């Protein structure tokens, strides 16, 4: 009676949770409904966890009826473990979420993905170790476990590498091993061969094969992400997001749990789309990002140093000059980039824009779809600094307006304002739509030094006649600019 009732309750709650998740993602697509969307997601997750916990309690207490071959482990131990894990994990997560600076959001998201991957691996191995009742169709079940672990492991190691790259622990340049495609292929084939061997083993004897494959998958994940350059990091994070969904879906298959399947698939496909939207914005194919490594063609690299570099004269300017020009302008567009995030300059930038708006200057922000290290990263930072999202414009909305703009302030951005994307076919970013800031009457670039951007390529914008460089740390420059404007 109770068991039947619990089964029905579980089924209904899972349905409700799945729907809540769908509504949650839907809600996140506009500003107005975003907060409600997040709330719906939270409620769905809470519902799923509570109901699963109820079923868990019922099964632990009524062990002798529901599971005839009861394991030796005391039910209390399982309960204790669960409680500790839930409470401990929740506390750590809450702490992380409240402490993280908005500028390190990309790293946080990356590391959280790795947790899902790791959890999928652990669940997979645990499922394998647990004696399965059904001997019929055992192969299908084993394949499900195998795939789940594989995807989980790739997600895990890939996310960890993404995390270290975003943190700057590992350099951002793509690692280009000779024959890397062959290497990847070998690892995939190796995994398939191992799978065949694994399937032959009775009981839990296949564990060594499973662990070896896990190792290979870990290396594969590391290698895949190492080969991707800094400029593509936003897409990678989003792809890993998608992978973590697929890992959850695979876990759902092995556990015959529909909620896991639905939610995993939801996250997997929406993550894939997000990656595609971003790739489209960069005018590149997703395969190019996944297997390419950014700007790999050796021809371009060779040419980049010498002939193509328009090593010309640069114009330097001073804070005082910029302040005067800003006050004399009618239309100003601010282009923030990762440099602004690194220097934590968003608040000072906001103060400048408010001051100018008060003085009647039309100030807007132009956001490139891949500015920063996460899609929408700049929007989050500007929101943190209380910039009204109505003056924050997407590239497509504002690119035509640069021609009628008196001044553009480029703050810590580089590749996204690089004109060679449009006119230099040898440039690794050729074909990527960029913010056409050079069409404005005057461009001020705030930059730490003449070093190249994250993609590691020269920017001819710096040599244009209407470009003026303001060297120095973004926050210091912006703060002194603010002081000058107030004077």
């Amino acid at each position, binding site marked *: 009676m109770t068991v039947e009732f619990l089964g029905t309750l579980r089924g209904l709650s899972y349905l409700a949770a799945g729907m809540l998740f769908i509504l949650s*993602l839907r809600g*996140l697509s*506009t500003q107005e409904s975003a*907060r409600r*969307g997040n709330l719906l*997601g939270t409620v*769905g*997750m809470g519902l799923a*966890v509570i109901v699963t916990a109820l079923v868990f309690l019922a*099964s*632990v207490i009524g062990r002798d009826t529901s*599971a005839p071959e*009861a394991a030796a*482990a005391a039910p209390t131990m*399982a309960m204790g*473990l669960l409680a500790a894990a839930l409470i401990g*994990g*929740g506390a*750590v*997560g*809450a702490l*992380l*979420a409240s402490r*993280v600076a*908005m500028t390190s*959001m990309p790293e*946080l*998201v990356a590391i959280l993905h790795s947790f*899902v991957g790791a*959890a999928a691996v652990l669940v997979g*191995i645990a*499922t394998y170790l*647990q004696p399965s009742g*059904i001997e019929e169709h055992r192969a*299908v079940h084993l394949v499900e476990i195998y795939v789940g672990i594989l995807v989980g492991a790739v997600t895990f190691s890939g996310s960890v590498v993404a995390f270290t790259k975003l943190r700057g622990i590992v350099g951002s340049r793509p690692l280009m091993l000779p024959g890397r495609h062959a290497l990847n292929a070998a690892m995939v084939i190796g995994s398939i061969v191992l799978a065949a061997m694994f399937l032959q083993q009775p009981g839990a004897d296949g564990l060594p094969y499973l662990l070896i494959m896990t190792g290979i998958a870990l290396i594969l994940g590391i290698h895949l992400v190492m080969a991707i350059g800094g400029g593509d990091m936003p897409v990678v994070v*989003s792809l890993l997001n998608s992978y*973590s969904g697929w890992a959850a879906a695979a876990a*759902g298959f092995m556990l015959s749990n529909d*909620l896991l399947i*639905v*939610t*995993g698939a*939801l*996250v997997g*496909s*929406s*993550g894939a*789309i*997000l990656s595609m939207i971003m790739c489209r914005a960069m*005018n590149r194919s997703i395969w190019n990002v996944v297997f390419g490594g950014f700007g790999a063609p050796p021809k371009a690299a060779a040419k980049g140093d010498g002939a193509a570099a328009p090593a010309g004269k640069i114009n330097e300017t001073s804070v005082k000059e910029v302040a005067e020009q800003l006050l004399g302008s*009618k239309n100003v567009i601010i282009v923030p980039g990762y440099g602004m995030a690194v220097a934590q300059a968003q608040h000072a930038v906001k103060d400048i824009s408010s001051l100018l708006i008060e003085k009647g200057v*039309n100030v807007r922000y132009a*956001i490139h779809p891949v500015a920063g290290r*996460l899609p*929408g990263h700049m*929007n989050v930072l500007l*929101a943190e600094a209380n910039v009204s999202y109505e003056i924050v414009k997407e590239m*497509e909305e504002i690119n*035509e*307006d640069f021609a009628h703009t008196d001044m553009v302030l480029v703050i810590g951005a580089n590749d996204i304002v690089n004109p060679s994307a449009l006119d230099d076919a040898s440039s690794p970013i050729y074909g990527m739509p960029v913010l056409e800031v050079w069409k404005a009457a005057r461009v001020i670039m705030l930059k730490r030094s003449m070093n190249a951007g994250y993609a590691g390529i020269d920017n001819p914008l710096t040599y244009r006649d209407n470009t003026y460089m303001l060297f120095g740390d973004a926050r210091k420059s912006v703060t002194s600019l603010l002081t000058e404007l107030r004077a």
Partner: protein
Amino acid sequence: MSTKVGIPKETFPRERRVAASPDTVQKLIKLGVEISIEAGAGVAAGFPDEVFAEAGAQIVPTAAALWGQADLILKVRPPSLAEIDMMKPGAALIGFFWPAQNKALIDRLAARKATVLAMDAVPRITRAQRMDALSAMANIAGYRAVLEAAGHFERFLPGQITAAGKVKPAQVLVLGAGVAGLAAIAAAKSLGAVVKAFDTRAAAREQVESLGGQFIPFDFKEEGEGQGGYAKEMSAAYLAAEQALIAGHAERSDIVISTALIPGKPAPVLLTSGAVVAMPHGAVIVDMAAEQGGNCPLTERDAVVEKYGVTIIGHTDLPSRMARQSSELYAMTIFNLTESLFPKEKGFTIDLEDEIHRGALILKDGALMWPPPPRPKPPAPAAPKVEAPKALGAGHGAGPAEKKKGIGGRVAGAVLVVLLTAAGLAGPPDFLQHLTVFLLACVVGWHVVWNVTPALHTPLMSVTNAISGIILVGGMVVLGSGAGAVANVLAAAAVLLAAINVAGGFLVTQRMLRMFRK
């Protein structure tokens, strides 16, 4: 044998422009073509024959000789039937053409196996701005319209305080803030007038204000933005509301410049007779839509009339009234298009894959190519975007790529069906059911996310990340199923990691979203 390019004298009444300037003649010759110009073609535009001869053109005495020998004719106005009959069979023609209004010309040219590219059909994309003759001419016309109005307006435009008394600045109302309207705003403003402008597109506000004009907003349910950023035709109720609003403003205006056009349709009546009656005595209206019937029913084409004390100017030749300037600019746009038709090392070539060539092409060797296949890319109705599709992926041959994808999709679909059938036959009974659920969820995920605003990418990712923490439930299921101690510890570790993810993900999203504000 190099291509012979011919530039005839325009024959349309009051047309003073010419399709080449000495400057573009030199540039054209660099493309490796021979240029001949009909005697006297540039005189009205201020380019006597000697100047063209100096630039390297050959002067041909008669129209018949010129049309008879040229492989490519560059013109301003559409050719007359008589001109077509002089044309060398199989020759090409570039110029304004207005294919929708000139069916008879198309038929006659088709009979001559002619190739025709219309300057007015060049698509309005970023890459084609250098060839945008319409904008170049509209800019001149808008400027000239203000000067015409000022000429008939028997008062100052700027406000002045003189010893003899105070003069109020003239009130100028501009209807339609397209290129011509914006040029008129700029010109009127620089003459010192107070300028207001009306446009149905809310997106025009910024442009109007950037020129120092005051924007008259118009709230009505229908959206006025169509393909390629042109205003489209509106319903009767809409039009009535529009007329009432404009009449209210016209009553207080000294000069009205009206520029509203709907492509391929008669111009909308914005300024009713009633509105004209109410205007101040001595006011001036320049109806730049006169050629398409006018924005005011009292307008007489190509004439200046006075009705109810208001001067109404219906000139249709505004660019020709600045023939030298407009010839120079028109010649540049037509040269830019011509240049793209002569790729390196090749003769005259029309690239059908090129969005610009394809768009401008009316006839190819006598075969009708117009209208080009649609490229439906108007901005999504929800977002207040300004001509957004212009910027992205212009001319990257989106058409064929999409087709390929479609085939790829069908192949993938077929493979999927086969795999599913195999899984259903071989797998356990509930496997197929799980797969169904899985695929449906994929489709839902696919559709739910497409419309996300880019600003929300980070929160969206962070929430999906939190949701993928659902693997927590997986850990709990394993933990609850009475596995061994090792499995239990592994499962508990999984729950721990997933719980971090869930709590962290949702909370950080909430924190982020709280910051977004207007």
